[in-house]
């Protein structure tokens, strides 16, 4: 059957060089070779240094200010302990920033779409001004304003005898554990905290149960309302039953500082203020875009069934816009967490600042940088995990 008459001649075998598999292999081989060369060169260039993480276990011999709830002495503790103090400082700023910037950002984003001309223009100005200014300059500017614009502590700006603004920081009232009316031990506060947690868990289950009932019967069972009632009632009743085991301490000036209450230091204030406003201006744009992306029929339908403006926003518009905005907001959270390193500009002792001190004292720049990048990556990972969990809870899986 080898005699073929007519038709095409049998195709000549493709030369090796033009075969796809061979070319892929060749390309990868060349690529790996070049990459290996580059890595080899970098390793070679950095080879002259001494390596090892032992320096982290030696005494730090420097102090870190702006600690809160902890008081770690830098002269006796190791460098690694002081680095952990820095991480705690970063975590504080990031948590406060994410919370406040979300609230502010949603408020400004919604105001941007308000039918009220003045309100919407003010929201627009807020976004345009703060989004286009370098965050670093903003933080430095806030710091200058707090340090040099606010009065001396002796004649601090007094807001109703509870808040005090001075160039030593912003003093605010703060709850302190207390034995309560019956003069019990201080751990009554912890008992109350446990009661509040129990009330929260109970409220969660009641809410779930009522949601199920609502779904089964089609009748309203007000899950959110009952959940909040149970939580607030539980917290209040236990608070009263334990004899008010908590007092709110109002700041009192003693000498050149405030004795009670909580003083937000200028560094923390400037950093948090700058980060919050900057992040909020981006979140506001995301909120606006995701609300505008909703079909107009949603607003019209809400109007048609007679919802008020507030109900329309909270029951119809925001829940749907939330799904749209979570990925972008997550990105902004990640940016904000990394931007907290600009604390360096106001000498707020965050993890980058502490790491930089360590590097200045002992060198080991490569190891210090490895520490920095691993910390930031873990922080980003934590934020992503939480936000992805939220996203998966909110995404509609069933129609």
């Amino acid at each position, binding site marked *: 059957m080898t005699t073929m008459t007519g038709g095409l001649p049998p195709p000549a075998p493709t030369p090796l060089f033009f075969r796809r598999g061979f070319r892929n292999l060749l390309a990868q081989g060349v690529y790996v070779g070049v990459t290996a060369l580059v890595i080899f060169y970098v390793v070679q260039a950095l080879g002259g240094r001494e390596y090892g993480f032992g320096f982290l276990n030696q005494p730090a011999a420097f102090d870190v200010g702006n600690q809160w709830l902890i008081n770690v002495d830098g002269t006796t503790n190791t460098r690694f302990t002081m680095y952990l103090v820095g991480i705690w400082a970063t975590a504080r700023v990031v948590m406060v920033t994410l919370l406040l910037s979300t609230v502010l950002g949603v408020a400004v984003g919604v105001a941007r779409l308000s039918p009220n001309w003045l309100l919407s223009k003010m929201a627009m100005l807020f976004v345009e001004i703060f989004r286009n200014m370098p965050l670093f*300059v903003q933080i430095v500017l806030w710091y200058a304003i707090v340090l040099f614009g606010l009065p001396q502590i002796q004649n601090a700006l007094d807001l109703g005898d509870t808040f005090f603004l001075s160039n030593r920081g912003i003093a605010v009232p703060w709850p302190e554990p207390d034995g309560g009316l019956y003069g019990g031990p201080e751990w009554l506060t912890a008992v109350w905290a446990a009661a509040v947690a129990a009330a929260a868990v109970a409220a969660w289950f009641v809410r779930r149960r009522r949601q199920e009932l609502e779904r089964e019967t089609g009748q309203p069972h007000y899950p959110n309302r009952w959940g909040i009632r149970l939580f607030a009632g539980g917290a209040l009743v236990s608070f009263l039953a334990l004899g008010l085991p908590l007092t709110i301490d109002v700041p009192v000036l003693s000498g050149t500082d405030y004795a009670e209450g909580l003083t937000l230091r200028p560094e923390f204030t400037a950093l948090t203020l700058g980060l919050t406003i900057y992040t909020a201006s981006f979140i506001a744009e995301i909120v606006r875009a995701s609300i505008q992306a909703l079909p107009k029929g949603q607003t019209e339908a809400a109007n048609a069934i007679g919802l008020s403006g507030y109900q329309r926003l909270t029951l119809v518009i925001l829940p749907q816009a939330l799904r749209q905005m979570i990925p972008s907001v997550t990105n902004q959270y990640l940016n904000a967490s990394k931007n907290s390193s600009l604390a360096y500009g106001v000498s707020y002792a965050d993890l980058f600042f502490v790491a930089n001190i360590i590097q200045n004292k002992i060198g080991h720049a490569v190891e210090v940088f490895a520490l920095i990048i691993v910390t930031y990556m873990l922080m980003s990972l934590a934020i992503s995990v939480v936000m992805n969990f939220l996203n998966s809870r909110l995404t509609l899986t069933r129609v």
Partner: protein
Amino acid sequence: MTEPVAGARKVVLPPHRVRAQRPLGTRAREWTRENLFPSPAQAVVTLLALAFATAIVALAVYLVLAAEWRVITVNRWLLFAGGFPQDQEWRLWVSVALVFPLIGAAFGLWASLGRRDLLFMALAAGFLFFLARHGDAGWASTVWVAGSLALFFAGYLVCRLVPREPGRARSIATWTAGGALALALPAVLAVLMAAGGARTNEFSGFMMNLILAPVGIAGGLLLAIPLAVGRASSLRAVSWTCTAYIELIRGAPLIGWLFVALFILEDVIAGDLIVRTMVVLAVFTSAYIAEYIRGGLQALPHGQTEAAQAVGLGRTRTLQLVVLPQALRISIPPIVGQAISLWKDTALISAILPLRELVGNSKAAIAQPEFIENRIEVYVFAAVLFWIVAFVMSRVSQRMERSLGIGER
């Protein structure tokens, strides 16, 4: 046709035309009621907002009047050019005069200047003239500013003559302008440095921001395209290393990478610190831009690749002629966003590096005993300078989004 013919139909104007014909007072009253006081609740909101706005405006006016701006006018050179040799000032002005008409041409080709843009530009020009007139430089800088602005408008007007419809004239104009824009950066560097000009370690002040940001963006874009294609590649070795690179770079904040430029890269890359900073900015930006381009690649329907293969294009040609042009077009807005972000990030170079860009020189200005009280003024001025450029860039990106028809089909 002036007299209405008897029996002819009366012309009925649409409602908005009827409303527009009423006297101004009525319209203003109606607008106020609709937009500010539609309901009692809204009226309260309006009044509260008005009180808040008034307080802020009053505070701002008071601060501007109470502030002492002499610190800016005296330190004008320090803030704008710092350590740049003073006798080479003409090199700076020639660079400005080189770049302004190109920006004007870009506006003329891809956007148009509306009434608001002109108002904004008039304000910015007034600000520039004010700066140029105060201080010690005499009339020379005023003439340079006026000339540069004239060149901007010349570039704009010439490019407005180019027809908007795709055609031979337009494609010639676009390619010329695009090429000139691409060459602008090397040209400016040549003007600044060639034949006895400044050395790289003499770059300083606002000028340094204006040079570092474009270098970072251009370098980042050039690095990002192969990175994005590499990450999407089917070759495992390539896609894994590209992914690792991108995630590593995005893992640490820019200030951390500047730390690397200062303490680690000195052993790896020879050259001035400013060269290492440029490399770090480009590498940092490339990771972010690569992710945006990857987004563009993923947004492209797979049918595009299949269609290209069906008409017999090879893999390289498919990428070059079909996939990349469309993916890049989709990712232009976020890339401009990244450019704005990098522009703002150049403000933190002086925070850690011994380089003196605008913020660093602001610190130097405050360090003078005479101006130690004026730090707020100096930082406000720096913030305003950064803001102007970033605002213009964000406007350009919005225009581009609209004129490229992204998000529409």
